[in-house]
C-alpha cells in the first residue's frame, strides 16, 4: 500500500543512488567504476520507476499486484509489521540504542545484565525472574564467547577512561 513512509524510503534510495553514481564517475580506473556505474544507473532507473509508480498510484489496494499474490499464497501470513504504532517503533528502537550505548559506555559486564533486567521488568517479568534471567544471560554469553570462542568482551569507554581496565 502506498504510504508516506514508503515514498520517503524510495526517495532516500533514489538520492543514495545519485550519490553513488556521482562518486563512481570521479574514479580514475575503468576497472573500479564500470560495474558500480552500470549497476548504479540501472538501479536508479528502476528506483525512479518505482517512485513514480508509488507517487501516481492512489489506491494500490485495488490492484492485484505481485505482493497480493504472495499474500494469497501465504494464506494471510503477516510480513510487514502491520498495525504497529510509531510509538511502539520508537520504544523498541530506543531499547536497542540503549543497549548499544550501555555496552559502549559501561561495557559488556554491566550493559548486558542492565538491559536484560530492565527490558524483562518493563515487559512484565517479576523482579526475581528478571534478575535470574539477567544473570543467566550474561553468564551464558560470557562462557560462550570469552571461554569457548576466545573473544575478549567489551570493557566500556568509561572504565577505559578511568583506567580501571
Amino acid at each position: 500500500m502506498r504510504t508516506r513512509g514508503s515514498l520517503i524510503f524510495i526517495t532516500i534510495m533514489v538520492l543514495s543512488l545519485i550519490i553513488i553514481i556521482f562518486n563512481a564517475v570521479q574514479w580514475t580506473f575503468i576497472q573500479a567504476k564500470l560495474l558500480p556505474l552500470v549497476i548504479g544507473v540501472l538501479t536508479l532507473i528502476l528506483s525512479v520507476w518505482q517512485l513514480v509508480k508509488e507517487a501516481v498510484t492512489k489506491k494500490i489496494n485495488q490492484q492485484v499486484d505481485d505482493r497480493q499474490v504472495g499474500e494469497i499464497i501465504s494464506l494471510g501470513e503477516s510480513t510487514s509489521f502491520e498495525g504497529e504504532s510509531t510509538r511502539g517503533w520508537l520504544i523498541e528502537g530506543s531499547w536497542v540504542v540503549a543497549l548499544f550505548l550501555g555496552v559502549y559506555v559501561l561495557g559488556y559486564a554491566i550493559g548486558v545484565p542492565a538491559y536484560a533486567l530492565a527490558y524483562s521488568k518493563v515487559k512484565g517479568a517479576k523482579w526475581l525472574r528478571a534478575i535470574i534471567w539477567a544473570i543467566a544471560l550474561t553468564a551464558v554469553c560470557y562462557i560462550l564467547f570469552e571461554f569457548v570462542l576466545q573473544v575478549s568482551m567489551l570493557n566500556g569507554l568509561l572504565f577505559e577512561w578511568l583506567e580501571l581496565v
Partner: protein
Amino acid sequence: MISFSASMTAGSITSVLIGVPGDAPNVATVLDGYAMTKKGQAGRALGAALGASVVGSIIGGLLAIVMIPVIKPLVLMLLMGDYVFLLLLGLCFVTVLGRESTLKGLISAGFGIIFALVGLQPSTGVDRFAFGLPFLFDGIPFVLVAMGLFAAAETFEVALSTETSKRDVVPQAKSLRRDMLMGCKDIWTHKWVSLRSCLAGYGIGVIPGLGSTIAAMVGYAVAKYGSKHPEKYGTGVIEGVIGPEIANNSTHGSALLTTLAFGIPHSAMTAMLLGGFIMVGIQPGPNLLIEHLSLCFTLLWGTVVTNIIVGIICFLALGYIAKMLNVQPFYTVTAIIVLIFVGAYSQSESYESILIVMAFGAIGILMKKFGYPRVCLVLGMVLGGLFENYLYLALHTAGPLFFLRTTSLIIIALIIAIFVAKPVINAARSRLAIRIKS
C-alpha cells in the same frame, strides 16, 4: 543450511498444535494439521508431519546425491563468460520468481551488488564507497549484513508484537507417542500420495526462487487433487499433512544441488550458505562441484542426517519442545538481541561491527515493512563480487564479445524466458492458492 533444514522439520509442530506455522513452508500444514488437533488427533498429525519431513528430506537428499554424476558433465562445459550469465540467471530466478514485486526485487538486488563492491578495489586500490573509513576497506562483512537483515529485523518484529505466546497446547504425553507412531504408519498407508508430493516438491526445489513454501502448496495440491475425496481436505485429513510436509522437505536436496552445482542460490538460506563459502575462502560457482566434491556430498548427507536426528529428537521430546511455546517473547528478544550484539562484536572485536548490524537491521525492518525482498539484497551481495570477477576474467580471456557462445546464448534466452513467464507463473500461483483456499 542444516539449521534451516531442522527448522523446517520442527516448524510443523506449531502448525499442528496452535495453527501458527513455525516457518513459512509449514503454512499448508496448518490447514489439515490444526483441524486434526481440534478433532483430538494432534499426536497422529504430528507423527505424520515429522515422519513426512524426515522421509521427504531423505528422498530429496538421495535424489540429489544420485544427480551429481549427471550434472557434473554439464558443469564442465561452462566457461568464464557462461558463469557471468549463470550468476545473472540465479539473480533473475530469485528476483523475478519470488513472491514480492519484481521491480522491488531488482532494486534490492542492485543495492546488494553495490554493497558487495564496498571497500578497496583489489586491482586498483580505489576506495569504493568506503568513504575513508578503515573498517570498510575490506568490504562489509557478509555475516553482519545477514545478522542485521534477518536476525535483527525478525527479532524487532517479535518485540513489536503485542501477542503473548501463553497457550496451553501440550497434548497428554501418555497417548502422544502411540498416536505419533500411528501418524508415521499413515505415511506408508498413503505411500503413493507421499511419493507424488515428494517428487513434485523435489521438482519445484530445482528452480531457484520458487522456494519451499510454493513446494509445500504444490505438495498439498497434488495430494488433494489426486485424492478420491478432495472435498474433505481442510477438515483434518492426514494426507493434507503428509503432502505439504514431504514436499517442502524434499526441496532441501534439489535446492542444495542447484546451489552447489551452478552457484545459483535457491533462497536466502542457500545465499547465506554461499556467503559462508566465501568467508572460508571457497569460491562458489560451478568449480565448487569439481574442486570440493567431498564438501558437496557432506552437505547433502548432512541435510539427510539432520532431519533424521531432528525427527528422533522431536519424537522423544515433543512434550518439552511444545512447552517452549509458553516462553514469554521478551526472553527470546533479549537473548537474541544480546547474542547479535556480542556476535557482531566478536566478528572484528570492534564497535563498528555492532553499528553495521544495527544499520542493516534498520534497513531490513524498512525493507520488510515496505515489501522489498531482503533475499534479493543478500543474493546481490553474495553474487556481486563474483559477478565482477567473472566479468573481468571473461573480458580478458574472450574479449567484449564473450557472450557469443552457445551456452551463454542459451542462458541469456533462459533469462528472457523468466521475465516472459512471470505473469503466467503468477496467474498459476493465484489459481492454486484460490483453489486451496476454497
